[in-house]
């Protein structure tokens, strides 16, 4: 039986929410084991863990989104069974999920979005009263100290900037006056200044006695904000630590191995022959032309934030876009691919940024996923040669150590990291001259990242060129022989990895941070789903003096 806790009379140390022996299993797969945690009022608890560590499972159980947990969750001392988000909210637990866009109903006004939960309440009057809704919306915003004008409240919520949308969702979560607020990567789509604004709000909420669970990969933010850190790994709570945080130990708890953290390569390979050349290429209409040589025998890492021009370079070479100005050369000859097929025929392959949307064919076997771009090669007179396909799929599975029951396994049954290995292996299987990988390590565990990195070095050693485009300094240092830093369509730095230190690269990378408005980030349409890991290195967002530089990685997978 669930009871609404009514006694606010609690000692300061009494926990708001406590978990004892909470476990969650999906079928035979146990994803959360025997979690025991206490959340106290006026405390920000950072929840850390690699992908698949059980963070989202824990959040789902706590927010009522998954009622099939075992163990005890008590709120204010009373054991409850959380069966739905509505019930959890009623009992005082509110959650704000990572994808802000999912929390906004486009087409409804800002005020209507703020009061959205009322639609689900049977006790409310069935007729919607606009004026009352606006008043309720104002009251909700007041909890965050915001005062939006009537015209803002009346506008379509889809037109809000992403940071304002984030505040909207937060204000809505606070409407039910929760005792525990769960925030899942709230800054992933925010600029540094917007994140700062959010932190101020969170600090004042903490001061008012709210308990907050803060999920983030950004150590700088946690250092600046959290009162304690809880680390999950393989569904088990590895450690709880209070300030001051020992980051090396926390990382060790997270990843289970300390030595790998600062895994930089020794010496860099220097390529000699130029395979592809960008000549006076304009990446954006207003940016100055860029020249870049891509050489065989080395892994080039192009580092840049969203809107820096990384994807533009990949799309130009991959045949997805034509240059605004300037020309491309491949192996000394002019190169002007009109479509991806032209690029593939010329030996240029692109591993796209978004694996789910642009990479895999859901429901298809691993084998068919691998051979799709090379059907012409693997068929005679239109007839697909199955043996050829199978040998190619086996090669990919072997060289990248893909964990799958075999080439006929459905791609859906593979983990994210293994799916990514299949996609990368697909593109490398045809021995390309030039392989472009756009954010290849997103949502990929560290082991898969190592394997992909090793494969790239191998194809470079065999005389191909590999280009990794990323917004993560550590990823780039881990895989690249040569590092190019791209800022607003301009090359800020172009050096070999063994000739340059991390702080120089980070300095070049953050060059644009000195200019107040981040044009690229502001131009991000709010309706677009959370821009993929919007890459504010925490070092920039919030100075984290005690965090070593190698910890500035924003996303460990």
């Amino acid at each position, binding site marked *: 039986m669930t009871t609404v806790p009514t006694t606010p009379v609690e000692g300061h140390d009494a926990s708001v929410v406590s978990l004892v022996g909470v*476990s*969650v*299993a*999906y*079928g*035979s797969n*146990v994803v959360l084991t025997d979690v025991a945690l206490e959340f106290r009022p006026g405390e920000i608890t950072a929840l850390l863990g690699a992908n698949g560590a059980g963070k989202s499972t824990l959040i789902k159980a706590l927010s009522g989104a998954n009622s*099939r*947990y*075992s163990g005890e969750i008590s709120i204010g001392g009373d054991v409850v069974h959380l069966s739905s988000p509505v019930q959890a909210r009623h009992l005082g637990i509110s959650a704000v999920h990572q994808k802000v866009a999912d929390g906004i109903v486009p087409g409804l006004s800002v005020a209507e979005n703020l009061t959205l939960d009322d639609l689900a309440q049977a006790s409310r009057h069935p007729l919607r009263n606009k004026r009352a809704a606006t008043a309720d919306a104002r009251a909700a915003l007041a909890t965050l100290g915001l005062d939006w004008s009537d015209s803002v409240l009346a506008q379509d919520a889809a037109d809000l900037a992403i940071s304002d949308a984030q505040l909207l969702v937060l204000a809505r979560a606070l409407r039910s006056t929760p005792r525990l607020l769960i925030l899942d990567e709230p800054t992933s789509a925010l600029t540094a200044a917007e994140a700062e604004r959010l932190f101020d709000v969170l600090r004042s909420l903490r001061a008012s006695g709210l308990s907050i669970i803060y999920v983030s990969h950004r150590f700088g933010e946690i250092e600046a904000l959290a009162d304690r850190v809880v680390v999950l790994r393989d569904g088990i709570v590895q450690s709880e630590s209070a300030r001051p945080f020992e980051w090396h130990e926390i990382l060790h708890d997270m990843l289970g191995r300390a030595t790998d953290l600062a895994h930089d390569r020794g010496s860099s390979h220097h390529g000699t022959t130029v395979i592809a050349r960008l000549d006076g290429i304009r990446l954006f209409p207003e940016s100055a032309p860029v020249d870049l040589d891509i050489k065989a025998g080395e892994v080039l890492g192009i580092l840049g934030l969203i809107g820096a021009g990384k994807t533009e370079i990949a799309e130009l070479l*991959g045949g*997805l876009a034509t240059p605004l100005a300037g020309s491309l050369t491949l192996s000394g000859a002019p190169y002007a691919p009109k*479509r*991806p*097929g*032209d*690029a*593939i*025929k010329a030996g240029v392959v*692109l591993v*796209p940024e978004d694996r789910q*949307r*642009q*990479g*895999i*064919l*859901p*429901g*298809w076997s691993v084998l*068919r996923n691998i051979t*799709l*771009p090379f*059907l*012409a090669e*693997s*068929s005679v007179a*239109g*007839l*697909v040669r199955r043996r050829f396909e199978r040998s190619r799929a086996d090669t990919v599975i072997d060289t990248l150590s893909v964990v799958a029951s075999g080439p006929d396994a*459905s791609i*859906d049954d593979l983990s994210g990291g293994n799916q990514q290995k299949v996609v990368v292996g697909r593109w490398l299987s045809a021995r390309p001259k030039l392989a472009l990988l756009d954010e290849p390590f997103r949502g990929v565990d560290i082991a898969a990242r190592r394997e992909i990195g090793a494969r790239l070095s191998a194809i470079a050693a065999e005389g191909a060129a590999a280009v990794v485009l990323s917004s993560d300094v550590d990823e780039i240092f881990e895989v690249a022989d040569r590092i190019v830093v791209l800022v607003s369509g301009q090359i800020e730095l172009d050096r070999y990895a063994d000739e340059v230190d991390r702080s120089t690269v980070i300095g070049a990378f953050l060059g644009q941070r000195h200019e107040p408005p981040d044009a690229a980030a502001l131009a991000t349409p709010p309706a677009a789903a959370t821009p993929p890991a919007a890459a504010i290195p925490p070092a920039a967002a919030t100075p984290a003096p005690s965090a070593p530089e190698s910890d500035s990685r924003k996303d460990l997978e």
Partner: protein
Amino acid sequence: MTSPTVTPGAVATRSSVGERAAAFVVKWGFVAVTVALILFFVITEPSFRTVDNIFGMLKFIAPTAIAGLGVMLAMTVGGIDLSVGANAGFAVSIAAWTMVIGNQVGGVAVSVVLVCGVLIGALNAFLIVVARIPDLLATLTTMFVIVGLKLIIVDGKSISSQMTLSNGTTAPGKFTADFLWLDRGSIGPVPVPVIIFVVITVLLWFLLERTRWGRALFAVGTNSEAARLSGIRVQWYRTVAYMGCGLLASIAGLLLAARIGQGDVSAGNSLLLDAVAVALVGVSVLGIGRPNAWGTALGAVLIAVMVTGFTMLGLPYYAQDFGKGIVLLVALLFSFTFSRRRTVVTAGSTTSAS
């Protein structure tokens, strides 16, 4: 996914047994239903098991099956074609018009009809690929346009041999024997429509399952963006799929015209729903979970068995619709509800893939 409150081991065993049973039902349930239905009719109706009756059934269902194969082709690229019935009806009237009013031989009528069918498919492709209208809406529009155009061409009347024209004269031509052979002819004991049905099924199976073009069609339907990045000319494949669908619908229309022997303006009206149903049933057969030629053909056969059997049992014609509805419902339950596999059918996505 079962309750985690049970111990994990018990959960695992129970769910895997349940899953295996479900997988078995999904895979074989449909075939079992067909066989059971056939057995039932064979036992209760002696006339059911004659060779004539078997070919008669197949001949009767051939136009539906062929139009259904067309819909199946559109479904491979993630679309659907609601204009197949209108297309077939158009073919019936145009074939009659060419022979009766235009006084042409059957071969000319067949050519004209096939060209019209491909053009209707091209119109669909244009609306979907170039004008970016969602497939469901585009083909619905085409359906209206084609039905209207047919009625304008034939003055809203059915065209029959020796009919009196509006100027008082008698129509110069008639349904020629070579055209009527399409329905009445046979090679050995096998009627021509059955041969056409089987040949088209085999061709489509071969194209879709054995060639790289078939693989590309499915890739476009599964994830058009990934297909595009793999160098596949997505728009081209979608265009070809709709044109192929138009061609198949017009072939279905030719068979109908030859069967009726006149340009009945209402011909083809009931074809659309049957064709879509047959293609959807095809998806679920053997738990394949995606559009396929043999499944579609089998779905058509099942409907033929049911309709024939019902007729022999003396059930009223409207019982057939009820029966078809139940068959489709069961098929969809197999595809979407009980199947653990992802069903790759986006028949009529409401947004256009750009």
